[in-house]
């Protein structure tokens, strides 16, 4: 993957985000997103059971964890795409319970998807323009009268072209989004999210399936979001990338938050190693079974 990417510059990390010890569920100086007792079960399986978590404002937070840890489900719960069985969660001081997904987006919490959702048979430019908020022409009755929305539409187009240029997609603006490569679609989805001037951008595996060259530019774009004052929360499996850009890391395993902290510290946390490698990875499971141990020793001797 992107382990061979040499960062062009070392990003400036934001520090001093938390209050007290960096432990699971610790308080933040200025949280933008707070979840309390959020629980979601599918039949007998508890996918998400988060006691308390706060996402710091103005920083890049990574949500990591092994497959099946409940990261994407937690994303869906926070953005209104799924309903938890219990719990409260708020964004910018406003409760998000029972708020439908489209209203969550209007409040400034924009997400992307693990499986990219480019709108295939719309042009790249139309994809972008769809992202803008508060469009007059999106009302059915006003849409028949172009003079009511033409000016606003031109402004949105100018903004879309400017963002496309930043993401180096402007040459593709009239092509169907379906004709873009997987990596370009990831870029388009991120660019489209910016059209609504969000305060919190939630990226679900922004690097999955993206080639190393493009990874670097995506990393720069994510760092760019932070420099523009946005908060970023992203799910990622690539530890190199997490270490490189994240200011804060939240680790999930089996639906729970098991560790939190700055990237350097969290990678050393025994709970994180347990989550990824299993809690018994360094215990000798054969310790009580002398017969097997004997047999194993013989096998090892044979090989030597």
């Amino acid at each position, binding site marked *: 993957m992107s382990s061979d990417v040499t960062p062009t510059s070392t990003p400036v990390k934001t520090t001093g985000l938390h209050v007290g010890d960096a432990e699971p569920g610790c308080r933040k100086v200025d949280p933008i997103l707070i979840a309390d007792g959020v629980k979601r079960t599918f039949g007998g399986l508890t996918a998400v059971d988060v006691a308390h978590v706060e996402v710091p404002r103005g920083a890049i937070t990574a949500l990591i964890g092994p497959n099946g840890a409940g990261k994407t489900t937690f994303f869906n719960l926070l953005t209104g795409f799924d309903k938890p069985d219990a719990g409260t969660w708020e964004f910018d001081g406003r409760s998000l319970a029972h708020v439908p997904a489209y209203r969550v987006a209007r409040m400034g919490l*924009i997400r992307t998807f693990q499986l990219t*959702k480019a*709108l295939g048979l719309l042009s790249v430019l139309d994809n972008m323009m*769809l*992202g803008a908020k508060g469009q007059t022409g999106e009302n059915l009755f006003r*849409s028949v009268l172009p003079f009511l929305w033409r000016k606003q*539409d031109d402004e949105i187009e100018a903004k879309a072209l400017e963002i496309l240029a930043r993401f180096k997609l402007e040459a593709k603006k009239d092509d*169907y989004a379906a004709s873009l490569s997987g990596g370009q679609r990831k870029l388009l989805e991120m660019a489209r999210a910016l059209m609504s001037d969000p305060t919190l951008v939630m990226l679900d595996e922004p690097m999955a399936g993206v080639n190393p060259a493009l990874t670097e530019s995506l990393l720069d774009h994510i760092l760019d979001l932070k420099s523009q004052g946005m908060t970023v929360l992203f799910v990622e499996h690539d530890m190199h990338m997490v270490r490189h850009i994240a200011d804060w890391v939240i680790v999930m395993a089996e639906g729970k938050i098991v560790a939190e902290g700055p990237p350097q510290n969290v990678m050393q946390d025994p709970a994180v190693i347990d989550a990824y490698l299993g809690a018994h990875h360094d215990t000798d499971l054969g310790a009580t079974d002398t017969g097997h141990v004997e047999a194993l020793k013989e096998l090892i001797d044979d090989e030597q």
Partner: protein
Amino acid sequence: MIDWIAIFSNAAQELISPTTAAYALAALGLAIHFGYTGLLNFGQAGFMALGAYGYAISILSFGFPVWAAVLVGIGASIVFALILGIPTLRLRADYLAIVTIAAAEILRLIFTTNTFDAITGSASGLQGYKTGFAALNPIPDGTYGFGPFTYNAYDWWIRIVGWSLVTVLAVVTWLIMRSPWGRVIKGIREDEDAVRALGKNVYSYKMQSLILGGVYGTLAGMIFVLPRSVVPANYQTSLTFFVYAILLLGGAATILGPVIGSMIFWVLLSFFSGFVARAVEAGWLPFMSQVQAGQLRFILVGVAIMLIVIFRPQGIFGNKKELAFVK
């Protein structure tokens, strides 16, 4: 000998017949549903039946003027769209298909049953609702036109109203589909979760689309019954499928497609039926009776549509480029 002139002149008449206009309108409504929004509405016949019955019953049973009867039909189809949409639009697309096809059949059976004979006329249907519409006709009595297009004042009046409605609604559809509203609608067709994540109320947009396309179907139902009477057997599921055939023939996400598709469909249908009937008469098809000949036209039209869908799946006006990316 075969009377080719009669066959061609009958076929040519279908170009501007009110039935063609009605099917064009219904197909335009389906283009909004299916072509632009991705809603699988298999109950367009139900919307057309509501237009026909809403109009005829308002006039016959309640003595409403024409404008009020039209409004009753439109109101009925809005209520119908809400009843269909509220439970199903939150679910996957195929549920709407099942519910609409069933609801349209329920409507037809309600109109057919003897229980409401006094109002609906049950299986024999309704007639005698045309005086109000004829009274609005500004054309003086007489016969006008040339060649195959020679009609009396009433027939011209239906054609003018029908095709004016088609023109106006085609322009309206064109306007809304190139507006930001149309952009949202087309986005929903591609991926509704993505559109939801961008802050659009997808449910409301789908409902607006269902209502709008349904109202087109209702107006189509009114034009459809002006040259004939209201008969429940006309609103079977096959009506919906003919409208779908027209839509696919012309191109699903196009404006001109449904209109030109309807013209081609009806001209072809008339040509085949005229040709086969006369060929049987002339003894060209000795293995066939007149009754069988009447059915053969649907087979021939079916084959023609299959050929078009196989060799030009985007329809006549569709964009070939889109096909490269169909999942």
